[in-house]
């Protein structure tokens, strides 16, 4: 299968710290790909480079064959890459419904000129609301629509954040530690959910995760970053038995 995302020789420096050194990797279409590594190994920096928050000092990023490094984050999202953050970033004082209605891209009613003309965006709005309703119902969350996002439980926040990518018609979703701060069973649920979404909506997932035990049950391919360099790659079994990875994690000399 062709790669949906291709990162080529990306380097990124912050002052004297080399956060990424010549990293090249590929995410295959329709896969769940993992990205692991000890703290400070450059995983989040890599995500920030892919989504346009940082411009790489060197190298390039291709999404579906088009070069995307140098684009702004909103442009990257509009190409079809959604992301979540380590700490959930829903809009607290807004309701779940409003939070989810925000993610579809290119809404007519979001332009300053068309917003006062209700007729121009009414149908679109109703259609999107129906879509949100179905999605919430599908995962037994339809009672949550008028709760404020700040009142949602940790597990629900993660579910809502992940589903927002579907509403935004994303093709690739980058998840930054989806199971951080939730219980093992909830984390397992979340991965089941991710697996389900991948199959039904034809999505690709690229996941940073520290819970390797959870991650390895669900991913097809794993990349290991260490000190900004790609240390190892392969199927979960290959990576788990790689002595270099074990050394990096346990902390050798």
């Amino acid at each position, binding site marked *: 299968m062709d790669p949906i995302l291709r990162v080529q020789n990306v380097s990124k420096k912050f002052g004297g710290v080399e956060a990424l050194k010549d990293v090249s990797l590929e995410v295959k279409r329709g896969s769940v790909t993992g990205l692991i590594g000890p703290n400070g190994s450059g995983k989040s920096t890599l995500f920030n480079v892919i989504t346009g928050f940082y411009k790489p000092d060197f190298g390039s990023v291709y999404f579906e064959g088009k070069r995307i490094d140098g684009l702004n984050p909103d442009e990257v999202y509009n190409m079809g890459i959604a992301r979540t953050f380590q700490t959930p970033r829903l809009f607290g004082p807004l309701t779940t419904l409003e939070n989810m209605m925000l993610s579809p891209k290119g809404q007519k009613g*979001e332009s300053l000129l068309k917003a006062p003309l209700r007729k121009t965006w009414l149908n679109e709005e109703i259609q999107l609301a129906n879509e949100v309703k179905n999605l919430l119902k599908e995962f037994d969350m339809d009672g949550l629509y008028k709760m404020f996002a700040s009142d949602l439980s940790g597990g629900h926040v993660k579910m809502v954040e992940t589903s927002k990518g579907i509403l935004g018609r994303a093709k690739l979703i980058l998840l930054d530690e989806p199971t951080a701060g939730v219980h093992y069973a909830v984390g397992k649920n979340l991965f089941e959910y991710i697996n389900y979404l991948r199959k039904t909506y034809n999505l690709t997932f690229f996941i940073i995760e520290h819970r390797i035990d959870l991650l390895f049950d669900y991913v097809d391919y794993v990349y290991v970053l260490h000190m900004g360099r790609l240390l190892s790659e392969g199927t979960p079994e290959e990576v788990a038995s790689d002595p270099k990875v074990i050394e990096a994690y346990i902390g050798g000399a």
Partner: protein
Amino acid sequence: MFDILSFLISWLPLFGIYAILSLCLNMEVGYAGMANFGLVAFYGIGAFVAGYTSITIFLTIYGYNYPIYSPEAIIAMGRVAGKTPWLNISVFILSLILAFLIAGLAGYLVSYPTLRVGPAFLGITILSFGEMLRVFMKHFAPTGGAYGMLGIPHPFAWIPDSAIKNTSFLILTLAILIGVLIYFELLANSPYGRVLKSIREDETASLCIGKPVPQIKARLLFVASGISGVAGALYAFYLGAVTPDMFITAVTFEVWSMVILGGRGNNFGALLGASVFSLLNRVTSILNFLFSDLPIDPNYFRWMITGALIVIILMYKPKGIIAEKPIKTEAWKIFGAYGETRRKLIAAILRIINYLKRAIYWLIGRETGYGPDIKGSKRE
């Protein structure tokens, strides 16, 4: 002694102008989270643009060659202002449009270099912009320097009766206010309002769901600054004069206190705040006028009361008197929650009617309508 109608005529135009300002500020601060500490700059730009254009057009049409701030020009303006109703009205409309465009453009340009940094930088930049503009205008000869411009032609100067003249202006101001309110309500209760709130809560996250944040903010600043400029133009026509020192930073903070008192992120809250503070302003001025032998000038009380109100509101109702509500679009209808407020309202009205009925029965002494039997029947 106290004439309610003339009180309304002196209060409501001021209320209208301040309400337009607080609606603009509410759009920027309450919805989009942009700390605009320099609202007065755009207000002042509007006032100066309106004053300059209207006086220049009048003097040019009537063939006077005086500089617009000279005493001769002011006398000439007094002579010609009431002669041609169509000119007054069309100059007024033209001035409002120009005030909107120039103030809006100023807002857009000022915001441009600062939108990519945090909200505090935007606030400080616009704050200093407003203050520098005021000092600049004090030394800018073509608009009269520190003395400003006098003799701005009132749009209804051709009406001889001053009560009718003032009432017409009042109605015009309130009409513009209602227009602005409807426009902002439509903006707020749309997907656009939702995007603004998302920017207020978390700019980065908003950027991550494909919203071009700097562009949205700059455009909103254009519209809101432009409408502040219209308010400034109305103020210039209302007073008939503009001087740079009318546009000190305190005006901005007065509008801020209106928004904080009424409720951020709620247009009706902004209206309420504007009415409370403009009323306070009028009342203290009138008290000052009526009781001139008080040991303390009541105008000083106004600032004390303003401060006390802000502290009390922030302590007991930090969201303002009218708290923010989720935006109303048809999306709620899909979930069947659209008519909820309406149902609650009807229930509340019915309850009040019931209480009134019981109070009336009690007053006229009808024992049968009040007492255990009515309570019993209600439970069934």
